[in-house]
């Protein structure tokens, strides 16, 4: 009886650790799964009162770097879940760093949206272009740099991009930074021959708004990345202009926004199309070009989609499409 108990316990232990192994051990893949739609007004609040607040939605997807074995297996049986090998550049980056990087991109996109909407409406705004460290690879030679640090100069050159370009491969650049806490520091960062002449950091443009006739509040949430730039701009433009272009329809979409109004491409298009379908939106804007081709292919795979897929190359294209719907 005692032997049987010990035997049983051993098997139970093996079973337990096997289950825990499958549920916790992570492998080098990247999963992109459908997410949800998020109303823009849930994270950008303006001091503008309107009864018919426009209904614009950002669409987000779940990107899982290094999923567990269980997630990897389950993903094979789930619709619209994409499985890719983890890119070399993403190896060694922690989940926390990815989250911070996503937040830097998100905040930059919100500021770019405010500027674009204000300028499109002819309203005054003063801003300054800055450069932020948005991601640090594990091979970077300076471990004290942090995501969110603002780069003030490279080798004394305040034109940061020029300073970077002028740094010869195999040498180090003197980088002057300011931390988010306002502390100035100087680091040496090597442009490494062994890493294809890369510094090991990603730099993003950030627009610091200095003068604005309105006040707005950005609420923190878990969604990162710049892909809701277009929808944020449409929301702000509609709200500040008092236009009601959304016509009480559910307007969703994806695409980054640049200050000249161009809409940039994004990832996870297939999953976003599927999410829009599940959430029964009325309109879905997608960046023109390769993104639209992917979206079109995913759209055709859906059973009875009810929304209109509209490709847009610029913010103006999106406005014209909304005006056309308004007219019809």
């Amino acid at each position, binding site marked *: 009886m005692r032997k049987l108990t010990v035997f049983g316990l051993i098997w139970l232990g093996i079973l*337990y650790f096997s*289950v*825990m192994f499958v*549920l*916790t051990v992570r492998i080098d893949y990247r*999963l992109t*799964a*459908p*997410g*949800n739609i998020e109303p823009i007004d849930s994270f950008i609040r303006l001091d503008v009162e309107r009864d018919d607040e426009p209904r614009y939605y950002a669409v987000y997807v*779940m990107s*899982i770097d290094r*999923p*567990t074995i*269980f*997630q990897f297996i*389950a*993903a094979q049986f*789930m619709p619209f*879940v994409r499985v890719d090998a983890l890119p070399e550049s993403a190896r060694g980056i*922690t*989940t*926390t760093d990815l*989250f911070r990087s996503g937040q830097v991109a998100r905040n930059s996109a919100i500021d770019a949206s405010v500027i674009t909407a204000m300028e499109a409406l002819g309203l005054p705004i003063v801003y300054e272009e800055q450069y932020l460290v948005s991601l640090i690879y594990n091979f970077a030679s300076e471990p004290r740099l942090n995501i969110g640090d603002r780069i003030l100069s490279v080798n004394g050159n305040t034109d940061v991009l020029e300073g970077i370009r002028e740094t010869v491969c195999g040498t180090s650049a003197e980088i002057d930074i300011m931390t988010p806490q306002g502390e100035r520091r100087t680091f040496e960062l090597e442009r490494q021959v062994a890493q294809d002449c890369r510094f090991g950091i990603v730099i993003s443009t950030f627009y610091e708004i200095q003068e604005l006739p309105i006040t707005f509040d950005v609420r923190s949430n*878990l969604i990162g990345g710049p892909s809701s730039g277009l929808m944020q701009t449409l929301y702000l433009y509609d709200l500040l202009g008092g236009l009601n272009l959304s016509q009480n329809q559910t307007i969703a979409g994806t695409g980054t926004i640049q200050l000249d109004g161009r809409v940039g491409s994004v990832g996870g298009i297939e999953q976003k199309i599927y*999410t829009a379908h*599940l959430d029964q939106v009325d309109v879905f804007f997608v960046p023109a070009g390769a993104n639209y081709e992917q979206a079109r292919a995913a759209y055709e795979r859906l059973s009875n989609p009810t929304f209109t897929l509209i490709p847009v190359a610029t913010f103006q294209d999106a406005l014209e499409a909304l005006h056309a719907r308004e007219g019809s």
Partner: protein
Amino acid sequence: MIWLKRLQRALLMLLVMLPWYALFINLILLDIRRVNEYGYGLLLGLVIQLWLTRLSWQLNTPKKPLSKSFVGMVFAVIVIGSFLVHYLPLILL
């Protein structure tokens, strides 16, 4: 000492239920649209764990020497700690 032994059993029950929690956390991250359903799954796990803990306190009194209890507790803390270190960054995000 009774509380030390009860703590040991509470940890053991947490250890028993750990795969359940791990399963639902895996599912939430993969299928965020059903976060409410999976959230109920986590809650159900917590109820089962508390019930098992209470049951283990009521049933036969512990007979193991205290040293063995300590070994069990340390083992449980290591496994649970590893789990938390593995998943907390994901959950906190």
